[in-house]
């Protein structure tokens, strides 16, 4: 399957040509990876009927952190709730979190009126130890309002999903680099307000992965500004309807959730479609509007859903 450089992606006529091409050449290497449903995240009373929320899975401890209703709930490696924090609003409005190697938590939160954000350094129990002052936000890029935070080898990533602006700071909060994704993607000014980013996560080398659902596009942006995007609209397997989150698995494949199809698609490193799992339905392994994804070191995929379907955990098998 052709690998789309992003500039082509932005030209309607080229897309149309590629669509024609791929219509004829699409071949899915099905069967190389499959997924089986294991369980849903639960507490002592049973499965928790989450409706949405964010998830971060700690690959060291294989624990899952779920943010919903301004509360962070921690689940152990078997999917049982073990701990929660933030529920008394003492940490502000929690937007996202990331884990540092030493088990400390970086929390991105907003003041109650959403005017100001802060990055809080918390211990593993979610108790704040101090705020990390973010400094050096590049001027002229407007009001920076991050919605995602990530951490990779001593670097803090903050991403504004509306302005498509990513910054990378050191552990003291000093911004070292920034990425004006609209500029890199060459999106026209008037188109920008509608092209909001949905999912965001880090690739295994610190590259950024994100989705632009209204553009039917998922992208990988390397630290040296190499942008690779893929995706074409369509109902066929592997095509995009309305996508949400993107993550990498432990082997360098990419998982992209599709809300309309209600599936999680799996692509290889070259963005070639491999397999999809889920599908709308009432069965335990079915999905309803997958919104967020996480993965642990045991190849267990966590799928946060809408429609009060909670968070389903699947096991990936490779052959």
């Amino acid at each position, binding site marked *: 399957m052709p690998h789309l450089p992003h500039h082509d992606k932005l030209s309607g006529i080229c897309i149309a040509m590629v669509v024609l091409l791929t219509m004829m050449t699409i071949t899915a290497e099905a069967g190389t990876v499959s997924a089986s449903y294991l369980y849903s995240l639960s507490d002592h009373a049973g499965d928790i009927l989450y409706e949405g929320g964010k998830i971060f899975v700690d690959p060291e401890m294989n624990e899952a952190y779920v943010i919903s209703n301004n509360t962070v709930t921690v689940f152990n490696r078997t999917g049982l709730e073990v701990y929660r924090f933030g529920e008394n609003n003492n940490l502000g409005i929690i937007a996202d979190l990331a884990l540092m190697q030493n088990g400390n938590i970086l929390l991105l939160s907003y003041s109650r009126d959403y005017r100001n954000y802060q990055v809080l350094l918390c211990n593993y129990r979610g108790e704040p130890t101090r705020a990390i002052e973010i400094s050096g936000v590049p001027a002229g890029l407007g009001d920076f309002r991050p919605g995602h935070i990530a951490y990779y080898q001593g670097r803090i990533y903050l991403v504004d999903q*509306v302005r498509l602006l990513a910054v990378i700071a050191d552990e003291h909060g000093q911004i070292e680099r920034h990425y004006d994704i609209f500029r890199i993607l060459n999106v026209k000014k008037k188109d920008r307000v509608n092209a909001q980013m949905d999912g965001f996560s880090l690739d295994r080398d610190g590259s950024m992965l994100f989705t632009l659902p*209204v553009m039917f596009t998922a992208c990988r942006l390397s630290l040296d500004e190499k942008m690779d995007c893929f995706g074409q609209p369509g109902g066929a397997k592997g095509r995009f309807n309305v996508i949400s989150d993107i993550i990498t698995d432990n082997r360098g494949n990419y998982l992209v959730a599709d809300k309309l199809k209600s599936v999680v698609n799996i692509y290889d490193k070259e963005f070639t479609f491999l397999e999809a799992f889920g599908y709308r339905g009432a069965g335990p392994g079915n999905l309803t*509007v997958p919104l967020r994804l996480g993965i642990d070191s045991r190849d267990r995929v966590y799928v946060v859903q809408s429609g009060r379907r909670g968070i389903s955990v699947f096991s990936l098998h490779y052959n």
Partner: protein
Amino acid sequence: MVMTLMAILINTEKTVSAFHSGGVGPCDACHVMHGTSGSGSALLRGSDPSSTCLHCHERPGSIGPSGHHISTPASDMQQGMPPRQLTPGGDFGWLRKIYIWVPDVSQAPATSYGDQHGHNIVAADYSYLPDALHAAAPRGTYPSASLTCISCHDPHGRYRRNIDGTTMTNGNPIGSSGSYVSSADPQSITSVGVYRLLGGKNYQPRSVAGNLAFLNDPPVAVAPDEYNRSEAASQTRVAYGTGMSEWCQNCHPGMHPVAGSGAPRTHPVGITGRIGSAVANAYNSYVRTGDLTGSAATSFLSLVPFEEGVSDIASLKAHAGTDGSFAAGPDPVSSQVMCLTCHRAHASGWNEALRWNTRTEYIVYNGLYSQEAQAYQPYGQGRTELEAQKAYYDIPSGTFAVNQDSLCHKCHTGALP
């Protein structure tokens, strides 16, 4: 197959990210055309049409008002926190908020249910359920169980505004949205979408049974390019032209104010609701309770908008905006009251999707919108200050009097008629 392919070809040639572009967007955003298991009505893959829309119109984790988002998920709104979007139509998230308060020592607790806060769109994937309090549209027959986004908006955006000002579903192709200040004007070979893709004459979703076809065309109005924003520093002014009340009457025909009928809960609207010079003077001089020193050029209040009574798009474009440069009050001859003078189209923080709380004596009491944390809350009615302030689109409470009366008085000085 050929159809699908053609549609993709046509649609991907549009601009990158304008999605509906005033007409039909790429089919694949709403339909799974082939190749997957299971089936849905009209090949939709949401549980229902509204869920299909909310895949894009609700963005979980959105931290503030921006773009086309008109719903806040429950997971982003814990107790005491308001919905996050501030569009003129309003955030459907208010339907998820229930308020209970004790008015005073002698009274039982009072309740404002989520279902009372606006149009209960049915969207199972997003936990929006049919209205439990109204079986059908009040003063109409449209069943609440069938109320979805596509009851009002045509998902295929077929209604278009032509160069001669007429509205129709066929004819020239739709070039772009016609909703905004920066929208293109219709040309002799291309038309533009009607305001907000709303349904017009004869509109009725195929999946809804019964004789419910609309009798009236969409309203004429223009929204500012940036319409989902906090009004803390400046107001968002939609320039409503004509036809909004008649459009609402497609489903609420009995809300039609029959002169002298004496029916409760009707207010003169449209042509019968012409503001006239006496009421225009009242609107213009009213600043806040006890302050009637306002002037015609600066009297506009986005919480009490009116229709200009014109369908001239150029002048509406000149009046819509967010920088406050056009803040004039009603024209004494042409302006008129409309349903959205008092209501929001989707939902609000108050009962009946009203723009302000009409069920309290004071919308601001003791300088605050709420009576958060007090034992008795006759005025604040169970909302936190943050919730009440969002319900007023972040307009600072200090804009109003320390004890501020209902905004009906913007037009009716003294006692209400």
